[in-house]
């Protein structure tokens, strides 16, 4: 149940995020078809893989950021015990971001692009994104300042969001030198996912766990300090694992190798904390869906981001796997595990409360979780097998790129099959979240 009316502004954020998520997965399937089959030249000319990929990745970034922002708008009133500074600004900012997103996607179709992966949107649209981010930060900061009810969890969240916005600026200029270009590209991408976004994750996860388990705030905040300390310690210098082969000095092999080898530690701590809170909590778990997603998220995070990342950022391995399907495998498992599941955890926590639903049928949500979670894991494995094949055939044996790709066809077909199952799971969750209804008494086992 929501305590503050302005928490409702989160809902349209969640709805848009969910729809974009569905579109992202559809685009992903299209990309897999591009890999597995020969498409006619005319189709390739009209809708190149590159455009579809720009859709897939930009939709990912947009829906996740909207999820984080919605989550923030939901959490901040309750944490600061006050209404938001301005509901209107929150809605305006959503319109601005969605408008930018739609313009960007249509622009891609007509070749309006900066041509840098993940940061394709043109300079003019970058400015709109910056404006929207400033409105968002202003709105959140003003709420906190007026409420004068500072908590460490809010500090972490706001810190993560400010870091996120500042880092985006490094992706805007045109760099003459390609190596320098990629050097700062990673300030956005890596320091987002292994820095700023981890702060947001840490804060939101800690807050939700505190709410559902009733573990004392002091305990949660203490361990949150340790978590984010370790995240930033390993994550910042760990950026070096992207600097091995781009024309930077050799010491990055050592710095990147050592710090990124430590990157699983904070995630492991997060898993341990989660289990302790759930076991030692004061409250009986009343919402099994949130509980499942939260645990699923931290474990998947540890496997996809931690373990997969650990394995292929060791320099001697990365020399062969860098920029292969192994990277794709890691990317999918890490983004789904760490951030898609985090957003879904937020949605399953917040949406019933916004709709004033005390108990709802848990079955569709749980089913969606298992179907999508398992399908994504198998998809990650299929990408991984394709990646190992590619590494061996192309980079060890020295066969031509396409000769090696031909041997990987079967695994791309497996990816399509798993993608279809994943899509079913995702549609189940989207449909469930958008149509949540109170459970009738006899089925009230949510």
């Amino acid at each position, binding site marked *: 149940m929501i305590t503050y009316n302005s928490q409702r502004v989160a809902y349209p954020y969640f709805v848009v995020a969910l729809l974009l998520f569905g579109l992202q997965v559809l685009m992903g399937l299209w990309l897999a078809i591009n890999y597995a089959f020969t498409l006619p030249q005319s189709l*390739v000319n009209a809708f190149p893989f590159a455009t579809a990929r720009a859709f897939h990745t930009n939709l990912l970034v947009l829906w996740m950021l909207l999820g984080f922002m919605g989550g923030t708008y939901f959490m901040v009133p309750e944490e600061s015990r006050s209404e938001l500074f301005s509901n209107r600004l929150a809605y305006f900012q959503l319109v601005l971001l969605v408008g930018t997103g739609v313009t960007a996607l249509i622009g891609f179709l007509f070749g309006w692009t900066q041509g840098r992966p993940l940061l394709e949107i043109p300079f003019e649209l970058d400015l709109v994104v910056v404006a929207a981010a400033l409105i968002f930060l202003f709105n959140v900061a003003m709420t906190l300042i007026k409420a004068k009810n500072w908590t460490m969890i809010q500090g972490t969240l706001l810190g993560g969001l400010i870091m996120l916005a500042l880092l985006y600026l490094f992706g805007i200029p045109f760099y003459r030198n390609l190596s320098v270009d990629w050097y700062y590209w990673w300030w956005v991408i890596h320091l987002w996912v292994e820095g700023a976004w981890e702060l947001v994750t840490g804060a939101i996860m800690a807050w939700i766990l505190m709410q559902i388990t009733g573990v004392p705030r002091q305990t949660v905040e203490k361990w949150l300090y340790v978590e984010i300390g370790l995240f930033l310690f390993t994550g910042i210098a760990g950026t070096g694992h992207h600097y*091995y082969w781009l024309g930077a000095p050799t010491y990055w092999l050592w710095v990147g190798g050592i710090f990124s080898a430590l990157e699983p530690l904070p995630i492991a701590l997060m898993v341990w904390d989660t289990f302790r809170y759930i076991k030692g909590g004061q409250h009986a778990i009343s919402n099994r869906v949130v509980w499942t997603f939260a645990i699923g998220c931290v474990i998947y995070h540890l496997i996809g981001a931690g373990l997969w990342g650990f394995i292929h950022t060791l320099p001697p391995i990365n020399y062969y796997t860098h920029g292969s399907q192994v990277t794709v495998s890691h990317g999918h498992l890490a983004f789904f595990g760490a951030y898609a599941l985090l957003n879904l955890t937020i949605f399953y926590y917040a949406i019933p409360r916004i709709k004033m639903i005390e108990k709802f049928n848990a079955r569709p949500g749980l089913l969606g979780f298992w179907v999508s979670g398992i399908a994504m894991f198998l998809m990650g494995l299929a990408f991984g097998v394709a990646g190992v094949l590619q590494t061996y055939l192309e980079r060890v044996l020295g*066969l031509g790129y396409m000769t090696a790709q031909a041997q990987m066809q079967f695994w791309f077909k497996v990816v399509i099959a798993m993608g279809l199952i994943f899509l079913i799971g995702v549609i189940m969750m989207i449909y469930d979240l958008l149509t949540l209804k109170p459970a009738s008494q006899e089925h009230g086992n949510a």
Partner: protein
Amino acid sequence: MSNKTAKWIFYVGTLTSATLFLILTWDTHRQIAALTHAEQLSDEVVAGKKVFQKYNCNDCHTILGFGAYYAPDLTKVYQRRGEDYIRRVIAKPEVVLANSFRKMPQQHVSSSEIDKLIPFFRWVNGIDTHDWPPQDSRKKPLAGAERLVSGSTLSLGAALFKENNCFSCHKLHGVGGDVGPDLDGVGSRLDLETIKKQISDPQSVKQGSEMPAYPELSPQDLQAIAEFLVHQKGGAQ
């Protein structure tokens, strides 16, 4: 653990890592000019980078290993494929990659834009990537193409065949491109003189041939390549 210790872990951890990272970033800026031959980073190269971005090349290809993984890495494309192939594949992907099961879009890149891409790829080729990628490494001979040249068919002709980038378009014993015909068993199909004519002036053998002419080859080199090829007997695999 006390609350105070937890806070210390946060501050010390974050500051140590950030300080180290910023110092190394500063030092990287000092060294990167030398590592990337920034003195050769002319306006022409930068113009090429803009063309590279304009056509969103990087959302199919990787470069320096970054980007999408749908098409070959372009870091060393200048050395691997040569200028002529790069020009042809960008101008006419539908012809050059007609036999490839993965296509490249025809984006109508103008010839003046292609003129800019070439120096860009030449410059990228010179970046010190610590010998990455392995498939283009000159230090670690790879099994495929190198073994073909140095092992079973050690000859001047084989070496010249490789040096002139014939593998870019032609396949031999399963190695090489799909643009031109597979050359396994070519010696059973063509005689020495036809092969020589095909190389020095493809139009004289077949009107409208897509193969570039190699008139700059010396008569001795031409003879050596043709002899190497005419000894490729037997049916195509």
